[in-house]
């Protein structure tokens, strides 16, 4: 009853891989975007802000379908990537990671942006007078002081990515071993007669993963805060 079947293991490992890759790729991008939104004024800033938040308010199916239109084999970007770089997203696990990354992006950016906004700009000025070029000010002062927010963003993003369902299944379907994540596996199982026990096992696993992520992030955030305040 508690033994996980190979298909279930595959789905779990795939979910972890998809969410980890999505988070790791989205984080540096998210930090850059958060910094731009927090520290720079530029034309079209509110449009950029709205675009980033769009996946949060659009029905996930719509986001997934838009991804299919853009990054599918015949999509504008997808065709170019496939022809020139040999990168294919459609119906691959990499596509699942792309969908999860985009869905997780607004949740990842927001806490990072808030924590960058909270960094005392007078400290950044002081770093400048000590000879630090702007990018070094960012790396040695802004980013370390914003670290708790970065960790929070990563955990929220990871949690969103591992639970993502609608956009992923629309964009890359539900192929066991390639794009079948925990969510889509549960979805398949509850459509199948006698699938209930297996579905329940995966439910328990996803609760455990979510708990571990939350506890882990709490621990990291506390460590980071302690480091900042010098205890």
């Amino acid at each position, binding site marked *: 009853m508690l033994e996980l079947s190979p298909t279930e293991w595959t789905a779990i490992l795939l979910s972890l891989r998809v969410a980890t890759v999505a988070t790791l790729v989205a984080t540096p991008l998210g930090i850059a975007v958060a910094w731009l939104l927090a520290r720079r004024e530029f034309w079209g800033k509110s449009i950029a802000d709205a675009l980033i938040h769009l996946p949060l308010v659009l029905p996930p199916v719509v986001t997934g379908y838009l991804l299919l239109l853009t990054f599918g084999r015949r999509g504008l970007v997808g065709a170019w990537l496939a022809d020139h770089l040999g990168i294919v997203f459609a119906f691959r696990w990499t596509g699942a990671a792309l969908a999860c990354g985009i869905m997780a992006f607004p949740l990842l950016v927001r806490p990072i942006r808030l924590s960058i906004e909270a960094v005392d700009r007078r400290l950044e000025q*002081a770093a400048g007078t*000590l000879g630090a*070029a702007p990018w070094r000010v960012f790396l040695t002062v802004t980013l370390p002081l914003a670290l708790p927010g970065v960790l929070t963003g990563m955990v929220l993003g990871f949690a969103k990515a591992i639970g993502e369902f609608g956009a992923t299944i629309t964009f890359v379907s539900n192929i066991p071993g390639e794009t079948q994540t925990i969510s889509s596996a549960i979805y398949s199982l509850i459509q199948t007669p006698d699938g209930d026990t297996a579905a329940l096992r995966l439910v328990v696993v996803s609760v455990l993963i979510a708990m571990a992520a939350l506890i882990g992030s709490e621990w990291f955030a506390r460590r980071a805060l302690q480091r900042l305040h010098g205890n």
Partner: protein
Amino acid sequence: MLHVDVSKRLGEFSIEASFESEGRVTGLFGASGAGKTSLINMIAGLLRPDRGVIAIDGETLDDTLAQTHVPVHRRRIGYVFQDTRLFPHLDVRQNLDYGRRMNRLADDPAARTRVTDLLDIGGLLDRRPGKLSGGERQRVALARALLSQPRLLLLDEPLGSLDEERKEEILPYLVRLRDEAGIPMVYVSHDPSEMRQLATHIVVLQRGRVTAFGGAEVLPAALARV
């Protein structure tokens, strides 16, 4: 030599200041709101003048006509802020080392020892700024600015946030700094007794305008006008 001739509009307030000083310590004296901080922020490169020229030893840092503006991190001008602005996530040793690392200067343990001895902070190196007293924090801020090897040191009311006792604690260090460090300083204060003790030349600033320049003898007239 420090050459300043700038104007800057800040909302309702405007600064039009011009002076030239060869002093070891140029005192910038005036009531709060006279524009002292805005003026040294322009020297530091944190604030851009609307019009004018700022030069040190013949090197132009700002010239609005020639559209010259050397960015703050390339000016090699140290700045000691009233609120110290020590980096809270670094210990004292790392704070002191910051300027050297950012300027890619070679490690110089002798210079570090000289400065930490001068300011009596050798025993604080492993502490975080959060664990220091106000006077200790200000001494560390002084040392941090000195160790970035600036060609000019700006001090913005470094005693402003300290009580009388702490002021008496720091003042002798500033005198030693003036006599031993060999770095020209611009010292901002509204306190005439600090001016008398430290400044070799005094620029009196009132409502954004320079109203007097000279030695300590300019202070009584300036005080009478305030």
